[in-house]
């Protein structure tokens, strides 16, 4: 089978095994699990890149979202942070 995703996985990072094990458990077949794993990696590869930009963006989004959903809670978390230095 000629498969495109093969080249996309250059190295394995900590945490990828979580995805791999889940897929293997569900698919029960190594080749199928591998296909799924490659497809998933195509989507989330950026999360595992060493510069951390993708995750930082997500953290920022999460922050904005939390600020909107529950400002009181956010203020509390913020005060917990600031408390360390006062």
């Amino acid at each position: 089978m000629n498969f495109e995703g093969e080249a996309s996985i250059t190295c394995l990072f900590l945490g990828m095994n979580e995805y791999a094990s889940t897929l293997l458990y569900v698919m029960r077949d190594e080749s199928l699990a591998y296909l799924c794993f490659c497809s998933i990696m195509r989507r989330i590869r950026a999360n595992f890149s060493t510069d951390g930009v993708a995750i930082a963006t997500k953290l920022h989004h999460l922050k904005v979202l939390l600020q909107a959903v529950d400002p009181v809670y956010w203020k509390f978390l913020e005060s917990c942070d600031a408390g360390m230095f006062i």
Partner: protein
Amino acid sequence: MINSICKHFLILVNLYFTYRWLLLECKREFSFSESLRVLEVMWATLPIDNEPPQLKEISSLTSSSNNNIVDIFCSTPSRLTRHRALSCPQLSVIDESCSRKNRQHSCSVTYHDNYHHLSPSTHQDFSWTSENDEYRLYSSIKYDQNASSTLTRPREKSFENSFSLSEISEFDSDNLSTCSSDNPKASNTASQVASSTNWVLRLPTNDTIWLEDDNSFLLFLCISILLAHRTHLLKQKNLDEQEIAMHFDRYRRRHNAERLLTYARTLYVQYIQWARKKRMLDDLNSFSVS
């Protein structure tokens, strides 16, 4: 001065304990069997990948007459639209998402034709390529109630699955009430979530880039996890980031998937409805300006 700098820095590094949630898509936050369910629900919200797997066998699956169309669909979806519109309809070989687009498309072809008649000097091919957006806008305004189904292509991708959201919104309130009877902690958060349905109004309106996050349901799931611990954390005094992180760590693999998914769905639905409304208004505004 230094204090303010420190504070600024800390705000930037805040929520670092959610790193694992985001990286592993919350898989570790639930027990294994529940995490399967969570991942399934989450991945179901993702837009359908328009690229089919690059397997050689795919061409042998389709008959030779349809090969052309499938190939065009694989390479350039926008060109497919044109192609398919001209050779419309019946394309049963292509999967469900395509047939939905096809339906969508074929229903708007007539509008296009009207539009075309209005400007008969326009060459047909040209009108399909460059005036596609304009024409879509035109039809969405004229047929306001169908506007959500005639969104432009990138939007269609990001809200691929949003056609089912109307069904989800129907059981929102029921779900929350049954859920709140389970657990006092749940009732707190649930009532809070339900009472603040206008939280979307607090979202920054100018900053639309983050709305396009590739897995926004994950963010809502993280928010739900945070909210589930809200009452407990608010009671504590003098917590620092590390203690908060340790607290959440203790709940690793122990979260209640059912309850958190319900929260996340509620928030997600509210968000999607807000975003769609906002987009429609934006489209209308941009159309009236141009």
